């Protein structure tokens, strides 16, 4: 059984919000109907988004790091939002592990959003049903699209390739390799939800400068002085070459 998921590389994310806008664009144009976008130019705009990029400052000045943190549904392997749903609208697909809401069954009681510790479900203020990241389920299986584009909109939009998409149950997938190689971790592991989405931590990019890089051993200006001088009686280059 596969489990599709995103792996988000915090080392690479620059916080440009391209994933946010592309997500909104794709999901407001789809067959499920528009995502609410109320008073977009007013004093207090609001609406439903599946994906947000938040910014945190880690450390104390001057030793700080600015961490941009994209947050969307983590498609937990043991999602607490699913069993609490009274209608069965909130469900986890057995085939690919995507957690979805059936908008035609949802009664808008908001109980699933209470049961999600990550706060990634947002009620649509116009349709009055719960909405959330679908991993672009209407896109990733669309055979009318070229194979390279059968990925979530946020993944395709990311200019720094901070978002990877794949099956974390397949040990050879790009996401499994990234989790293994770059120490990918889940959010709030204390609640036993086993999020499928993983985050790759900030990594130090160390630079080792060796003596010989500051003063090149093959510097032609220095080479003569470093090499042992041949004796006058020793064969010269001409002697060697002219056989």
């Amino acid at each position, binding site marked *: 059984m596969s489990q599709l998921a995103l792996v988000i590389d915090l080392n690479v994310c620059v916080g440009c*919000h391209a994933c*946010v806008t592309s997500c909104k664009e794709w999901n407001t144009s789809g067959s499920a109907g528009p995502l609410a976008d109320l*008073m977009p130019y007013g004093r*207090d*705009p*609001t609406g*439903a*988004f599946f994906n*947000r*990029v*938040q*910014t*945190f*400052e*880690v*450390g*104390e000045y001057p030793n700080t790091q*600015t*961490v941009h*943190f994209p*947050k969307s549904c983590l498609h937990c392997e043991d999602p*607490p939002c699913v*069993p*609490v*749903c*009274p*209608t*069965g*609208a909130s469900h986890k697909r057995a085939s690919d592990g995507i957690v979805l809401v059936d908008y035609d*069954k*949802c*009664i*808008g*009681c*908001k*109980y699933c*959003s*209470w*049961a*999600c*510790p*990550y*706060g990634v*479900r*947002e*009620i649509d*203020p116009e*349709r*009055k*049903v719960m909405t959330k990241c679908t991993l672009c389920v209407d896109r990733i299986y669309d055979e009318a699209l070229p194979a390279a584009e059968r990925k979530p909109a946020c993944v395709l939009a990311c200019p720094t390739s901070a978002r990877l998409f794949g099956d974390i149950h397949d040990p050879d997938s790009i996401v499994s390799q990234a989790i293994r190689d770059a120490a990918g*971790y*889940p*959010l*709030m*592991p*204390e*609640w036993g939800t086993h999020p499928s989405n993983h*985050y790759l*931590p*900030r990594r130090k990019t160390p630079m080792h400068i060796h003596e010989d890089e500051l003063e090149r051993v093959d510097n032609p200006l220095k080479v003569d002085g470093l090499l042992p001088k041949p004796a006058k009686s020793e064969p010269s280059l001409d002697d060697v070459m002219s056989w």
Partner: protein
Amino acid sequence: MRPDFSVLFLTTLIGVGQGLFLALFTVQLYALFGLLPPQDGHLFYAHGSLLALAFLVAGLVASFFHLGRPERAWRAAAMWRTSWLSREVIVLPALMGTVLLYGAAHLAGWRPVLASLPSGIAIDATVLLGGLGTLLAFALFLCTAMIYACLPFLREWASPLTVINFTLLGGASGFTLAAAFAGRVAPDLVRFFAGWAFVITLFGLAGRIASLVRNSRLRPKSTLQTAIGIKHPQIAQKSTGFMGGSFNTREFFHGRPAGMLRRVKWAFLITAFGVPLALQGACWSGAPEALLRLAFVVQFLGLLAERWFFFAQANHPQNLYYQAVA
């Protein structure tokens, strides 16, 4: 969490209905064993059941205001295997139906004897309906409270005290109403009900204080460190990713200053427990029964404040992601 008035009214109103029904059937059981004089089926049980039913229906009506799509509410009975909310949606109408039948049986005098105890006491249909209703009333307390108590990361709620308090507070308000009701139709029961209301309110106060003490000692399990997975003691949010409000900034916080939380706590301790206890005690020792009507009104308002506090105090871990707008 943001206290939604539809849910405050739902949980308090059905609590009164359940408690009142339990009070009515308690009298019938006492009367069955000859501990209290038998009551008039029409005046006492039928009218009492109607009153209990009215509270249950009012609670159900209030619950619809919580739904975004109330026209689909019937779907909520589907997932009773996993969802306490779904179980509540099934048990509440079942209790309403049983209370209706119980009242109707008393009204019509339909009391065919189904069995008799070895001591010769006849078990008739109303006893069976009453017993069934009692089971359903307790099941409904369990379902309603477990909706909140089953969410492990809402740690203020995730405790057996939630179930105990929903049961005791519903029972207390129901018995207070029963005492006020008896003042009108069965004056010889006023002391009986006032005494029980006093005892249940006292236990409710103990349970609620236990819950307040427990919650004041809670230490959060989730921190900003586990929320974003960065092991550093100093993390400050600089942006939530948007400047306007969203569902996440509105639904999970009561939006009032901390001082209001403290004031509401003292307000409900006085109005849901202190004042009713004094009035119930006074009526038990012979004060005019009109005070019981006052006791019920004060206690019901107090329980609304108690439920407001119950929601406002619960701190959802998703708030860790919404500490600073920008």
